[in-house]
């Protein structure tokens, strides 16, 4: 067997390929790929990457398209000690170009990435290359602490921040999660979450580490089709963000309850879910493990709360995910606060990043070895944590964190004197938070409808503010920083 000891996730996949070679690992459309085939294709793609001169430590820009080919490439890179810079190929070109400039990838892989000067090979061409299978793969000496993935998350200033996750981090997170939820080899999971985000990519690793079966589903838009998959594949678990739950409720009523007996678990996360919705889920799924995580890309699945077990305190975000994770509440100076007192929630453990890609982003990211989440809250005497506010001013739109600075920059580019964006609750009750824009009155005061039209094509539709208000002056500190919290109040 190939020695992939630097990657505990790969080790587990290769072990399944050896112990249960015929077991179906992936279902992608009509294709059913066994663990033995998964291993064979990972090795084949690794040989291809090697043939392209990709070396350990090199970075590749990898389009997280929901295809089996992405999965082969993702793990082939891990095998070779190559760093995956995982991106959503439908991101605006400015974002992709920024990520390219910061990470200097050797190559881009996947459809949809068109950046001048960067060679991009489609998944199809990677898999079609059949002159490499005989090439022996050289697995380098790589530490489990070396970087496996760089995931770009939204920075408060608008520029994306690259989060470096080691092989140990991603495996640690998967083990903590499987340990809490109970996913095992008997499970069949439908994955409709995007793979470009920490949640979806994490589910993929959890399922394959457990030796279970992963069914790739494009997304949740077509619930008829999603329910068909639940039925025909006898799905036992899936993950969703709270905005998807609102969508399921609105578009399908209580139809999903007919799968209550077969669903062993549902993982939720990335945004808050109301207590009423938690109660409704408990009613519809009386025996399903309803597990909601709290975490960030930097500290994936730091805490968990299972609704049935937390029936008397459903407003908690839970307790640390495993004995490998610790959480405390610190004040601004980094001193630990007693239970019940609000401060910044800080975490450390096997899944916590050691650093951001750019040194500048590491400033103030940690108190010692405690990662600062930017979330405000407290712990109770039983060790449960509760969120009470957010220090970072990001807007959580349906689980996707968006920097107000990005939206403001787009609005200013249309000639508006000054503006500020804040989060408000989604009036339709679906996305959790949506942006509201405050515009400063000035010489240029176009109709709001014209500003909205101008933003189409500059911003994704969900980032275009839902509410607008003209005000005399955008409040700023003496140093010029926008005081968004003042506007929010």
């Amino acid at each position, binding site marked *: 067997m190939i020695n992939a000891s630097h990657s505990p996730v790969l080790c587990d996949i290769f072990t399944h390929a050896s112990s249960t070679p015929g077991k179906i690992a992936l279902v992608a459309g009509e294709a059913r790929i066994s663990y033995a085939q998964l291993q064979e294709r990972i090795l084949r793609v690794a040989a291809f990457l090697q043939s392209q001169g990709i070396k350990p430590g090199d970075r590749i820009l990898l389009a997280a398209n929901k295809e089996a080919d992405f999965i082969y490439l993702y793990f082939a890179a891990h095998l070779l000690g190559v760093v995956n810079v995982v991106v959503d190929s439908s991101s605006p070109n400015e974002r992709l170009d920024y990520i390219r400039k910061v990470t200097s990838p050797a190559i881009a892989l996947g459809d949809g990435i068109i950046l001048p000067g960067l060679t991009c090979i489609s998944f199809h061409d990677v898999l079609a290359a059949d002159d490499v299978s005989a090439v022996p793969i050289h697995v380098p000496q790589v530490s489990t602490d070396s970087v496996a993935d760089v995931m770009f998350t939204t920075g408060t200033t608008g520029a994306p921040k690259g989060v470096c996750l080691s092989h140990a981090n991603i495996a640690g997170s998967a083990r903590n999660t499987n340990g809490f939820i109970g996913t095992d080899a008997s499970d069949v999971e439908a994955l409709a979450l995007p793979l470009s985000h920490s949640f979806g990519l994490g589910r993929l690793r959890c399922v394959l580490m457990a030796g279970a079966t992963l069914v790739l589903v494009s997304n*949740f*838009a077509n619930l*008829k089709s999603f329910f068909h998959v639940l039925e025909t594949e006898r799905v036992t678990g899936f993950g969703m963000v709270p905005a998807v739950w609102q969508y399921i409720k609105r578009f399908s009523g209580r139809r999903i309850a007919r799968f209550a007996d077969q669903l062993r678990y549902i993982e939720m996360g990335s945004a808050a879910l109301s207590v009423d919705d938690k109660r409704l889920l408990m009613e519809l799924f009386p025996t399903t493990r309803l597990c909601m995580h709290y975490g960030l890309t930097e500290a994936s699945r730091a805490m968990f709360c299972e609704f049935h077990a937390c029936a008397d305190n459903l407003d908690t975000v839970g307790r640390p995910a495993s004995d490998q994770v610790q959480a405390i509440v610190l004040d601004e100076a980094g001193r630990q606060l007693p239970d019940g007192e609000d401060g910044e929630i800080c975490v450390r453990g096997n899944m916590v990043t050691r650093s951001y890609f750019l040194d500048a982003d590491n400033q103030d990211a940690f108190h010692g070895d405690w990662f600062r989440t930017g979330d405000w809250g407290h712990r109770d005497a039983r060790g449960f944590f509760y969120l009470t506010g957010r220090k970072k001013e990001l807007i959580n739109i349906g689980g996707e964190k968006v920097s107000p600075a990005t939206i403001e920059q787009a609005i200013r580019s249309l000639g508006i004197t000054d503006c500020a964006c804040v989060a408000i609750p989604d009036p339709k009750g679906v996305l959790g938070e949506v942006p509201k824009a405050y515009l400063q009155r000035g010489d240029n005061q176009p109709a709001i409808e014209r500003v909205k039209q101008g933003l189409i094509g500059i911003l994704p539709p969900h980032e275009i503010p839902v509410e607008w208000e003209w005000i005399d002056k955008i409040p700023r500190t003496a140093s010029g920083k926008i005081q968004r919290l003042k506007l929010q109040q």
Partner: protein
Amino acid sequence: MLNVDLAVVTDQLSSGDIPEWDSVGNLAIISTIEQELDVEFPLEDLFDLTSVQSIVDEVIMLKND
């Protein structure tokens, strides 16, 4: 609305067929059609509005009601 090439949008196109037509995109499509065409899709019908054709048929039906 979804920033996709119009050539992609055929009567047969279904939600989920293209990455842009995800759940958030579907909400945007439904609410924009309701606003622009002054119709209200009955909640019990939303589950079946899974393709361009089915949405067109529903709008025609609501307009003729």
